């Protein structure tokens, strides 16, 4: 059984709504951050790796003298 008579009641929760909703909101934000930061960190590692691989390849091509003109 839903415990509240209306959606407004559900938000207000007899005056306790602010405490309850802020708790849930902050918890949600922390949880989202915990999922997102390792994904961002992994992507940064990958991107750095890709850049250094490209740099090495350009360097190798230049030394080998077979380089096509690149930017």
């Amino acid at each position, binding site marked *: 059984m839903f415990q509240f008579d209306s959606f407004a009641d559900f938000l207000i929760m007899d005056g*306790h709504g602010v405490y309850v909703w802020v708790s849930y909101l902050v918890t949600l934000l922390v949880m989202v951050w915990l999922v997102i930061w390792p994904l961002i960190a992994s992507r940064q*590692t990958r991107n750095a790796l890709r850049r250094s691989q490209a740099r090495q390849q350009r360097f190798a091509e230049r030394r080998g003298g077979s380089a096509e003109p690149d930017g």
Partner: protein
Amino acid sequence: MASFYQWFHRLGAPKSFYFLTEKWLPWLALATSVLLIIGTVWGLGFAPEDAKQGNSYRIIFIHVPAAFLSLAGYYVMAVAGAIGLVWRMKLSFMVMKAAAPIGAALTFVSLFTGALWGKPTWGTYWVWDARITSMLVLFFLYLGVLALQYAYRSGDAANKASAVLALVGTVNIPIIYKSVDWWYTLHQPATLKLTSASTIHPEMLYPLLVMIAAFYCFYALVLILATRAEILHRERRTAWVAELDGV
């Protein structure tokens, strides 16, 4: 049994861990989302109102699971540190490092939601009470392990120092558990007990158990994600990471 040891040994290699967990992630994410949605809707809207505390008690459905996992997470971090010290497993130090910010975040959640629950219930956001103060110490222990990771030039020294601090800090865990019994505190005694009946109505207990299960799944999910990020970073100069490109 032999095959279990083989499996465990394989899991201990960062590369195998990275590929094995790749298959677990979607299932963990699914279980976490389903349990979190069910538990939150049940706890916020359908669990009955508390006779004494009114609706403010609905914070329990995140406060208790977050507190559980901040304590369990400390054991994960300390045990990972101990395994790293004793057997020099590379992976276990990575797990230890990954567990520190997650534990700190969950301890913050339990302190923050506790403060917001305290205001309408006790009339104050904060008291220097045994349970709350020992949880604050737990928060600083997590931050200490995190800080030590960045305090050394050499990764090896940082790992050892962090692991020692994590192990010494375990002395705080039983203090947190027992604080509500050993001292006269404002904090209510444990709601869930393994050895005797819980002091909570079943209609409030079931959504709480769902949320605890949800937080356990969530913890496993973010610990694996953070460990994978750490593996990529520390193994970035190896051939297998170089071959990952494009994924």
